[in-house]
Structures are given as C-alpha cells and as structure tokens.
C-alpha cells in the first residue's frame, strides 16, 4: 500500500540498493585509462591497477554515501530540501578544521620525516579525523543557530526559511574559504598542506585502507543513529507542537540530526575536498521516486549518492585525455548540481508564493 512500509518491503529496498550499488561499482571497475594513460578503455583491469582503482572507487562510494546521508540529515533538521553540506559551508568548515590541524602539527610532520617514523606520520594523518569532525560540527551549529527562525507564539516554527538558509550558507562558506586562504598563508615553508585539495574537491590520493576504514566507521557512526530515528524524522518535519504531541522529543531529534550530518560530512572530508551538491541531488531524486518517508529515503539516498559519485568519478578518470589531465570530481558534481539546485529553488519559490502564502 502506498505510503506505508512493511519489514519485507524494507528488506527488499535494502537488497535493491545494495545490488544496484555493487553493479555500478563493478561497471566502474571496468572503465579506466588506457596504456598511454590518456584514452578511456573498457577492460578488466590488471591486478596492479585493480588495487588502486578499487580503493579509489570505494572511497568515491563512501564519500557519496556520506554526503548524501548528511544531506538528508540536514534537510530534516532544517525542514528544507535545499540543505546540503557543501552549500551550507559545512564541508569547508571541516576543511578549515583539517587545515588548522596541519598548521598546528606542522613541526611534527617534519620530525616524522626527519626521524623516519611511520608511526608518527600515520598518527598525524589519521588524527585529521578529529579536527575534521570539530570543524563540521561548529559550522553545523552556526548554520542551525543562524538560520532557525525565532520561536513564534503560534503553533511553532515551520522550518528554516530558504532565503535565510542560503544566505547563512553562502556567508559561512565564504568565511571558511577565506579562512582556508588565511591558514594556507600561515603554513610554514616545508610543510605540505595540499591546499588545492581542500579548495577544489578532488578525491585524495593519500587514501589508504586504514584511512578508508576509519572514514567508514565515522560515517556509520553518523548514519546508524539517524537510520534508527528515521520514523521520528518523518514526524519531525511537522511543526514543533505537532511533533511534540505525537511523542517526539524534538530537541533530541535536532541534536541527533546535526551531529549525524556533521559526522558524515567529516567522514567525506577525510577522503576528499569539499564536493558539492551530492547531498542535494541524490535525496531529491530519491524523494521524487519513493516519497519523503525517511525510512525509505535513508536507505535509498545514501546508496544513490554512492552510485552518483562512482559514476562522476569514473567519468573524471576516463576523461583524462579529453581535458589533458584529471578534473576534480567536485567540478563535475558542481556543473551537474548547480543548475539542478537553481531549478529546484525556482520551483520552490513558485510553490511558496501560491500555496504557502497563507497559513503561518
């Protein structure tokens, strides 16, 4: 029956999403660059290449999964389908966290190199998870505090106003961008900061199996509590008063949403620079296919994100010859997602002026 979900239907949805993702992963594994490193070919890769490609594809899939999941969390938090970790500056906030970490630990990196200490090097690399989390959470709190309307005395607020939300996001992203430039100019000579990586949103070359595993654990730590609260998220999209009357602890739910959203964004930032619009496109497409029920959305949207980023990253890899080098995958997602976003904004504002004019 439409609008409901049974355990069997839920299990079926999981199976379909998992199967589709694995199929796309396998397909993407076949597409690669040819012998001269330029033209795209379709072939089963050699063992050497397979190892590199699988790691990168898994990273892409995890980033897509995390960003799309974070998008759903933020959209539920702000009751607004235009929310996205990139647009709201949360991705860049996470990058700022990592950049501060690089700046503070600069001398230690040099020590690790000079003393040939792989343990210290590894600690410094994997330790980036903490500042990435901190940066994302701080930005997320700022977005929430700044864009949430003041409590009204009637039936409670209906969510973040799209215009306020976008303005807050644009300004925070600009501030974070400026902070990145500022921090980069403070990085001492001889410390590698991979500044370009944090500005353009490419999948990092430094990904290791350990790094991937850490990011996956962080991603799941954000995802699973959100999934468990998916029925509550549906009710949380009503007004505060209605949600309360239906048995929802709205403050707890909001905290969960922004912690989960920030944690998943940070997981993505550990593997790549800020990649935009994944968290916007994928949940939206899933919503139009499956409806807004978070019990379905929180399964379908992250997998759709994984599939989307697998495909865009494969395009990036295969188009080396076309662009005389590799594009950052963030360039492709922005070119696809930007127009999509504007279209969505246009449609929403039309809707808002006709149906939403009355009410509260």
């Amino acid at each position, binding site marked *: 029956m439409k609008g409901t979900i049974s355990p069997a239907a839920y299990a079926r949805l999981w199976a379909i999403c998992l199967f589709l993702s694995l199929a796309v992963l396998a397909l993407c594994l076949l597409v690669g660059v040819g012998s001269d490193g330029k033209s795209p070919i379709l072939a089963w890769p050699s063992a050497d290449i397979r190892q590199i490609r699988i790691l990168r594809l898994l990273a892409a899939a995890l980033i897509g999964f995390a960003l799309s999941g974070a998008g759903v969390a933020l959209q539920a938090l702000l009751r607004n389908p235009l929310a996205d970790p990139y647009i709201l500056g949360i991705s860049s906030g996470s990058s700022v966290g990592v950049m501060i970490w690089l700046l503070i630990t600069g001398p230690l990196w040099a020590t690790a190199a000079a003393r040939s200490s792989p343990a210290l090097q590894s600690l410094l690399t994997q330790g980036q998870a903490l500042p990435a989390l901190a940066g994302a959470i701080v930005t997320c709190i700022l977005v929430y505090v700044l864009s949430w309307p003041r409590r009204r005395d009637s039936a409670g607020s209906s969510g973040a106003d799209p215009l306020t939300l976008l303005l807050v996001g644009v300004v925070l992203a600009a501030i974070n961008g400026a902070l990145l430039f500022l921090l980069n100019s403070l990085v001492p000579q001889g410390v590698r900061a991979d500044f370009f990586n944090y500005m353009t949103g490419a999948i990092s070359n430094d990904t290791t199996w350990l790094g991937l595993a850490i990011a996956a654990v962080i991603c799941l730590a954000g995802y699973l509590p959100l999934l468990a609260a998916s029925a509550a998220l549906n009710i949380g999209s009503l*007004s505060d008063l209605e949600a309360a009357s239906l048995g929802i602890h709205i403050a707890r739910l909001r905290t969960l949403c922004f912690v989960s959203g920030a944690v998943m964004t940070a997981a993505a930032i550990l593997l790549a620079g800020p990649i935009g619009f994944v968290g916007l496109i994928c949940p939206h497409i899933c919503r139009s296919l499956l409806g807004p029920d978070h019990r379905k959305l929180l399964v379908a949207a992250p997998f759709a994100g994984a599939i989307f980023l697998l495909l865009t990253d494969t395009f990036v890899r295969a188009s080396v010859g076309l662009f005389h080098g590799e594009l950052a995958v963030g360039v492709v997602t922005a070119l696809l997602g930007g127009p999509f976003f504007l279209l969505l904004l246009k449609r929403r504002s039309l809707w808002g002026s006709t149906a939403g004019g009355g009410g509260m």
Partner: protein
Amino acid sequence: MSVIAPSAATLAVENLSFAYAPAAPNALSDISFTTRPGEIIAIVGPNGCGKSTLLRLLVGELLPSTGRILLDSTDTRRLSRTALARRLALVPQLSTPGAFSYTVREIVLMARHAAHAGGGGMLGLSFETEDDLHAADLAMWAADVHHLADRPITALSGGERQRVAIARALAQNTPLLLLDEPTTALDLYHQLDLLDHLRSLAAQSRTLLLVTHDLHLADTLATRILLMDAGHLLADGPPNQILTPANLEPIYHVQVTRPQNAPLTFSRRTV
C-alpha cells in the same frame, strides 16, 4: 505490537504558572483545574489570554515555570514523550504542510509512532502493523479524508488539512484529546460532522479539551467552560453559569445578551 491505551484518564493542573523568559511577565498565572472522563471542556478567552500557551504546556512542548500537570496522578514531566502521546492527542490550530509532501495516509500513520516506541518496531523504524493501518483507516473515515489517503498533504486545501489533523489525532486513540480551534477552516457540513463525532467520543468517556473563540460553539458543545483572561483562570463551570453577560462583558468589551433558551448574542458597545 501496540500498547493498549487506557480508555479514560484524568488530567489535573495544579497551580500552573509559566513565563517565556525568567524576567518576562507570566503568560499563565496559578491555573488549577481537574478534568473528568466524558467531559467536553471549552477553554475560552480573548486574544492573548494564554489559551495557546496552556495547550503547549499540556502537550509537553513547554515546561511549567511553577506548578505541575498530573496525568492520572503522575507528573507529566516524569512521563516520556511517547507515554504522554499515548494518553493525549492534539488537533493543532493550523496544521503546517511542512516542506516534504507526505501522503495523507503517511501523516495519519504518524499518530501510531508513539504506540510502537519502547514496544514494537525494529531499530526504531516502527513499521506499520495491520492494527495501525486499521486504526488509520477508521480515523480517516471518521474525519472524511479517506478518499484523499494517497494525495500529498501539500496539495490539500486548508480545510482538508485540518480534517487530516483531526484524523491523525483520532488515530492516536487517546483518552484525552486537545483541539485548538478545530472548526475554523471547516465548511458547515464538516463542522457538524465533527461536533457529532466529538460528542460520541465523550460518550465513550474520553475527555475533550477545546480551545475556541467561538462562544456559540462553546455554549452548544461544551459541558464545562474555562474562562481565561490575561493568563488567569477567571471562571470554571457549566456553560449557562459561565457564559453570562456579567462574566463576558468586562473581558471582551462587547455587549452580551442571553435570552432564555436562546443563543448568546453580541453587539459592539456604543460608546
């Protein structure tokens, strides 16, 4: 597996006061009343008298500054949200459509969430059981929205949305039902339909609390009136004793006449 809700419950408000900020003046001052099963209580008073604030406190969205609210002799602050939602449902004044276009059925089924929490559901996903679907169907028939079941809530008119909110509150199947201006957006047919239904609920010893500006409605439907002004409870009793010119004229600043066995009439005071 749904938790069987008790069919009757008693709500006791004791010396309840509330201020929106520590320094702000009290929005509610020293309110006390106790409900009995089967009562239809209308809370009336002019704009800003504290009706909505009282409602938000009863639902648990706001917490009392002083005093307490007892549900079957348990302080509501010691009840979980879901335990409260199993005993007390709300029809809000204007239901927000929200940003996401849930279907009417999905909205009504949200009422069943509280019944699952703690008991049924896997991983907190609370899948709908046959009982839930049945309860939702009954509620949608009762509020005359069953034909809209698969329509998105965002595509409905204000009156239809109000009926969906009523259906949702009915699907919660609680002994206590709060209604905030439930008839404002309804056409005449659905107003009368609702009133009939509310009376039959009261006959099943459920307690209804109704916030309204419509003194005629309060007069005809309610068995008890709570008259409020400026955060105070002025009078509490049956309609014919409370809705009198002596009570109403000072706070509404209108002329009130009440002929024997005839409805109340109001006119603007000539200065």
